[in-house]
């Protein structure tokens, strides 16, 4: 059991999701429906995309706290392009390009500028937010065409079009990470930068690609957000950067790099959103949200951290078991040593 959790770190959050579902269903049987699942999924879409992107960057042992602003900037890009009369696919591509550019800039600052990732992205957090406000003049963008809203409102098999696209993206990223050289390079760079370099991985390019993918995913999140609420407020995406990282951490993506899976990040995002929906169901006022999310996050972290410490201890004990001497053997051994040393002394004397 312990070994299973150790090898599948995302199982912790899966268990937490199941426990939450079961306990709520016992309290209120109407919760136990497929519809609840799709409802939570649809409100988790933005966070899911951000978490997918964040996990790429976290895997390479970096961190990106600028995604909220990137998301805002891309949302403005898609909205402005649509209002200027561009067709939907072109507008979305433009937004994705803006996001990729933002991510690329982060990557260059970190990989080539050799600035610690948290410092660089802290700077771009302010920079992108300011650019967005400069672009819009601090106003909201409204009056978007219906074409983009339909992508979220109309659905196929109970899941919106964007929902299907997100599932598809998830599949692509899962494949990328587990079956392609690029994906394995992410793990290698995050686990051991020097080692990866020695093996011939181009570490700078790999990190820049990770950041660019993250920026693109943030842009996608901006597009989905715009489509879901139908306008772009000037605070779009602020505060979500920390939530995305929290989702990844919940899902077992390590901040120390090289460990984690996309599916874990998605489960983490799902869980964080599910808590909100549960609070609505329990008719608790909205001010409980952050408190409970924090409490759950802390307990998962403590549980996960202690679990890892104890697993490490157990493996160490196993590894060195053959060197350990029982008390009886030890006393025997000490007697032997002392008898030998007295013998040696005697010989030396004589």
């Amino acid at each position, binding site marked *: 059991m312990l070994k299973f959790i150790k090898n599948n770190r995302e199982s912790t959050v899966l268990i937490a999701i199941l426990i939450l579902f079961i306990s709520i269903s016992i309290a209120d049987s109407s919760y136990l429906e497929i519809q609840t699942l799709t409802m939570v999924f649809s409100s988790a879409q933005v966070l899911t995309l951000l978490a997918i992107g964040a996990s790429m960057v976290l895997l390479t042992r970096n961190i990106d706290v600028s995604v909220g602003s990137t998301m805002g900037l891309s949302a403005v890009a898609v909205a402005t392009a649509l209002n200027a009369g561009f067709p939907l696919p072109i507008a979305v591509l433009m937004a994705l390009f803006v996001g990729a550019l933002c991510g690329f800039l982060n990557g260059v600052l970190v990989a080539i500028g050799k600035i610690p990732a948290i410092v660089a992205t802290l700077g771009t957090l302010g920079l992108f937010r300011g650019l967005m406000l400069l672009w819009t003049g601090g106003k909201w963008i409204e009056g978007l065409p219906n074409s983009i809203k339909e992508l979220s409102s109309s659905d196929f098999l109970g899941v919106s079009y964007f929902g299907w696209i997100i599932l598809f993206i998830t599949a692509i990223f899962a494949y990328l990470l587990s079956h392609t050289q690029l994906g394995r390079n992410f793990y290698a760079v995050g686990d051991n930068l020097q080692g990866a370099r020695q093996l011939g991985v181009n570490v700078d390019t790999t990190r820049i690609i990770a950041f660019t993918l993250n920026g693109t995913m943030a842009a996608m999140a901006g597009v989905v957000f715009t489509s879901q609420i139908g306008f772009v407020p000037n605070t779009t995406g602020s505060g979500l950067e920390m939530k995305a990282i929290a989702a990844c951490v919940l899902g077992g993506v390590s901040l120390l790099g090289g460990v984690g899976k996309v599916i874990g990040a998605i489960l983490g995002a799902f869980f964080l959103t599910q808590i909100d929906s549960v609070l609505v169901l329990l008719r608790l006022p909205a*001010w409980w949200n952050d408190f409970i999310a*924090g409490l759950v996050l802390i307990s998962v972290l403590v549980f996960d951290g202690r679990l890892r410490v104890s697993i490490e201890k157990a493996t160490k004990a196993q590894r060195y078991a053959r060197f350990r001497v029982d008390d009886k053997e030890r006393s025997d051994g000490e007697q032997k040593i002392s008898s030998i040393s007295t013998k040696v002394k005697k010989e030396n004397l004589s």
Partner: protein
Amino acid sequence: MKVHQIASWEGALAILIVAEILVFGAINPNMLSLNVLLYSTSDFIYIGIVALPLTLVIVSGGIDISLGSTIGLSAIAMGVLFKLGLPVEMCMLLTVILGALCGVVNALLILYTGVNPLVITLGTMYLYGGSALLLSGMSGATGYEGIGGFPDKFTDIANAMVLGMPFPLFVFVIAIFFVAMILHKSKIGRNLFLIGQNDRVARYSGIPVASSLCFAYSLVGICAAISGILLVSYFGSARSDLGTSFLMPAITAVVLGGANIYGGSGSILGTALAALLVGYMQQGLQMAGVPNQISSALSGGLLIIVVVGRSIVGHWDLILDKWNRTFSAYQATKEAK
């Protein structure tokens, strides 16, 4: 060599502050009056008050991103305690204790789980921020008004003058003195530097890692609580969202001040100067008529430029070497042709 380097960085920061004030003064001459320079500190100096102890934490190789929430929690706690009918002095004392408790909880969680401080304080950021919202919701305070009705005696605190300085600035100066003593002249400070350089070596050489870290994080909590109280006194109302805008500028100030984000180096004077730099930048932009939001872009840009500049100056030999090598390789290929 190293002392010389740090001193030159602080000199550069001081020159930057003067240049900044002069530039803004050229745009808006009001900025150059001493009164404006003194009184405008009351708007931003809280960045400095929390950035000082944060330097201690960053020097020890950790980080505390829950401090914004701690400010909010202390502010709202101050209001709730006052509403319960406790005397103001008692409320302030209890609030400071609450802040210290928040810091100690951070440190204990980090030590107990062995998880990255960034992650733990991310969790406590939600926890403390959520508690602040919870407290304000339960006490019936509405989001933007908060808890008001404090006596004049309390609201006068932040507007009082001490030794010719506004009270928040006075607190900042006192804090610089104390925290600089702790970091640069005391045993705990040396321990924190060593822990930041190499955690494991510090542990093996018998340095009290746990108590040193508890001290550093609780100091952040205490200073966050003090800023919370000052903010409540300054605005005259206790709100749960008072502190959130101070987190990123505080980290910016520490990094600009020359601390290594991975731990092991940093200086209090640098942080203090950088806090003034960031703060006057916000003020100056506001006075120059630049909207509040765009100043965030400019301070973000400033952070990147300064850090890149420092990185270039720091790796100058390396860059020169690489340039020479590419240049000679280019010439060699040219000759071969």
